[in-house]
C-alpha cells in the first residue's frame, strides 16, 4: 500500500557466471550461506532419494523418546520415529514448498512487473491495483487465509505462499524497468521496429536478472519461515508427512523431557533461514554495484 517509489537502480554490467560465483565465494556471508544451504540441500536430496537410515513416518513404539545415540543420531520422538530422518524429510518438504512458491511468485511477479513498467498505461494501473490489494494484507494472514481455503497438500500451500510474494516481485521489477525503457539501446531497438514484447524479453529482462536473483534468495528465506509457521498452526502439510513446524509444535510438551525433539527441527529451521539470508546478503553485495566497497 505504501508507495515507496523505487529509486532508479541501474543493473550492473553483466559478468560471467563463474566470475559471479567466485566473488560470491570471496564475500564472507556469501560463502557461509552457500555452505549452509548446500549441506541442507544435500540432506534433503538424500531424503528424497530414500537414503536416510530410517523411514520418516513408520512408528516404532518400543524405541520411543530415545536420546541421541549411535543408532539414532538425533534420538527418537514420542512415536519412536527417528528424529534425524524426520528432520531431513522435513527440510526436503520445506525446501520443496519454498522453491515452488518462490518460483511461481518470481515468474508471475516478474512478468507482471515487466508488463506494468514497460507498457505503462492501462496494464500498469490494473497491475498496480492488484498489487495494492494484495499488499493490504499482512503477509502471514494472507497465506493463512488462502491455505484455509484449499484442500491442503504441499502444492496448495506453495500456491498460498506464492500469492503473497507475487506483489513483491512486481514492485521490485517495475522500478528498474521504468528506468530501462528510457535507455538508449532500448530506444534504438524500438526504432528498428522490433515488437515491443520482443524488446521486453530480449533487452530489458536480461538486465534485471541480478535484481531478481537477489529477491529470489531473500524470498526463499521468508517462504521457509512462512511454511514453518503455517504448519506450526496446523495449516501446513497435513500429518503424518514430516514438516518442521509441526514437529516443533508436537515437541512443545516434550521440551524438558526430550529436548532433542524440539532442538533438532528448531535448529534446522534457523540454520536454513540463516543460510538463505546470508546467501541473499552476499548476492546483493556482489551483484549490486552500489554496495560494492561500502561494507
Amino acid at each position, binding site marked *: *500500500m505504501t508507495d515507496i517509489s523505487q529509486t532508479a537502480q541501474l543493473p550492473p554490467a553483466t559478468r560471467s557466471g563463474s566470475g559471479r560465483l567466485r566473488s560470491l565465494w570471496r564475500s564472507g556471508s556469501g560463502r557461509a550461506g552457500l555452505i549452509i544451504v548446500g549441506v541442507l540441500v544435500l540432506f534433503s536430496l538424500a531424503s528424497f532419494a530414500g537414503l536416510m537410515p530410517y523411514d520418516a513416518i513408520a512408528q516404532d513404539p518400543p524405541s520411543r523418546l530415545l536420546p541421541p545415540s549411535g543408532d539414532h543420531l538425533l534420538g527418537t520422538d514420542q512415536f519412536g520415529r527417528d528424529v534425524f530422518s524426520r528432520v531431513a524429510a522435513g527440510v526436503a518438504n520445506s525446501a520443496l514448498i519454498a522453491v515452488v512458491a518462490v518460483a511461481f511468485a518470481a515468474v508471475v511477479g516478474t512478468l507482471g512487473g515487466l508488463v506494468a513498467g514497460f507498457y505503462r498505461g492501462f496494464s500498469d494501473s490494473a497491475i498496480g491495483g492488484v498489487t495494492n490489494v494484495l499488499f*493490504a494484507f*499482512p503477509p502471514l494472514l494472507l497465506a493463512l487465509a488462502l491455505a484455509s481455503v484449499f484442500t491442503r497438500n504441499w502444492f496448495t500451500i506453495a500456491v498460498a505462499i506464492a500469492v503473497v510474494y507475487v506483489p513483491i516481485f512486481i514492485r521490485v521489477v517495475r522500478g528498474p524497468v521504468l528506468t530501462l525503457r528510457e535507455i538508449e539501446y532500448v530506444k534504438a531497438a524500438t526504432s528498428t521496429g522490433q515488437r515491443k514484447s520482443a524488446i521486453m524479453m530480449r533487452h530489458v529482462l536480461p538486465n534485471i536478472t541480478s535484481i531478481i536473483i537477489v529477491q529470489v534468495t531473500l524470498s526463499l528465506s521468508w517462504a521457509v519461515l512462512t511454511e514453518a509457521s503455517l504448519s506450526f498452526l496446523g495449516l501446513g502439510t497435513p500429518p503424518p508427512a514430516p514438516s518442521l513446524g509441526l514437529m516443533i509444535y508436537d515437541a512443545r510438551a516434550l521440551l524438558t523431557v526430550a529436548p532433542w525433539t524440539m532442538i533438532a527441527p528448531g535448529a534446522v529451521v534457523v540454520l536454513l533461514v540463516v543460510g538463505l539470508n546470508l546467501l541473499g546478503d552476499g548476492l546483493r553485495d556482489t551483484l549490486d554495484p552500489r554496495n560494492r566497497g561500502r561494507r
Partner: protein
Amino acid sequence: MLRTIARNRVVKRLAAALLTLFGVAVFVFVMLRAIPGDQISANLGTEAAALTPAQRAALESYYGLDQPLITQFFSWMGNLLTGNLGFSSRAQASVLDLTLAALPVTFELAVLSILFALVIGIPLGMLSASKPDSLRDGLGQTVGLAGLSVPAFLLATMLLSLLATWFGFNPNGRGFAPLFTDPLLNLQQMLLPALVLGFGIAAPIMRTTRTAVLEVRSDDFIRTARAKGVPPRRLQLRHVLRNALVPIVTMTGLQFGYLLGGAVVVEQIFSVPGIGRQVLLGIQQKEYALVQSTVLVIALTFVIVNLLTDLLYRVIDPRVRS
C-alpha cells in the same frame, strides 16, 4: 476549487486507499466463496446431508445464498457499513462485539512490541554503523540476523516452556486479564509475547537504521557540523539520527501494520485474545462469516496505518511535502 481538491496529494492518497479497500473486499469475498461447501454445511456439519431439498432451499433463502453473487456481495457491503459484521454462533456474540474486544488487545501488544523493537533496534543499528566492519558491527549484524532468522513460534514456545518449568513463571496460563481490570497481570501476560515480537521486528529496524545512518554520515552537512565543532553526542542525535529518521519511521509503520494482523502465531501460543487469534479460531471452527469480516477489518487497519505513516513522514521530512 474542486480541481485543487482533486489534485491534493493527500486527497489522492485517500481515494487510492478507498479503491484498494474495495478491491480487498472483493478479494476476500471471492476467496471465501471458493471454499467447498457453504454456510449451511459449515453450521450443520454432517447433518446437512439429511436435509430435504425443501429444507435446504428454505435455509438457502434464509442466508441469502439463493441470490446472485453480486447481490450477496453488496448486501454484505451494506451490512458492514451499518456495523453488522455477522454473528458467531460458537461465541454467541456479534462479530462486531468480538472485534471491538480483540482490536485493543492486539493494538496494545503491537505498541509494546514496537517499543521493544525500537529500544533494541535503533541503538544497535547506530552502534553497528558507528564503526562498519568492526567487531561491534559484527555483533550488531549477528543479532540482526538472528532476529530475522529465528521463527517467532520457536522462540515463543521455548520461552514459554522453559520459564514455566524452571521458574514457574507462566502468567499466560491464568486466563487473560484485560488492561483496565488487572493492569499488573495484563502487563506480565504481555511481556513475553511483546518481547518475542519485538525481537523479530528489531532486526529490520536495526538494518534500516544502520543503512540510513551510514548514508547520512557521508553527507556534506555532517562534515560541516563536525568541522564547526558540534559535540559528538549532539552530532549523532540531532544531525545524523534526525536525518536518518524517514526510512526508520517508514519501516516502523510497516512493521506496526504487520503486527496488527501478523501476530497470529504469537497470540495463539500465549493465548492472547487478539484479532489474529480471532481469525485463526474462525478458520479452525469453519466460521467463515467471522473470518471474512475480521480479515477485512485487519486489512482496513493495515491500510489506515500505512496511510498514517505516509502522512507522518510528510511531517518529519519537509522535503517530501513539496
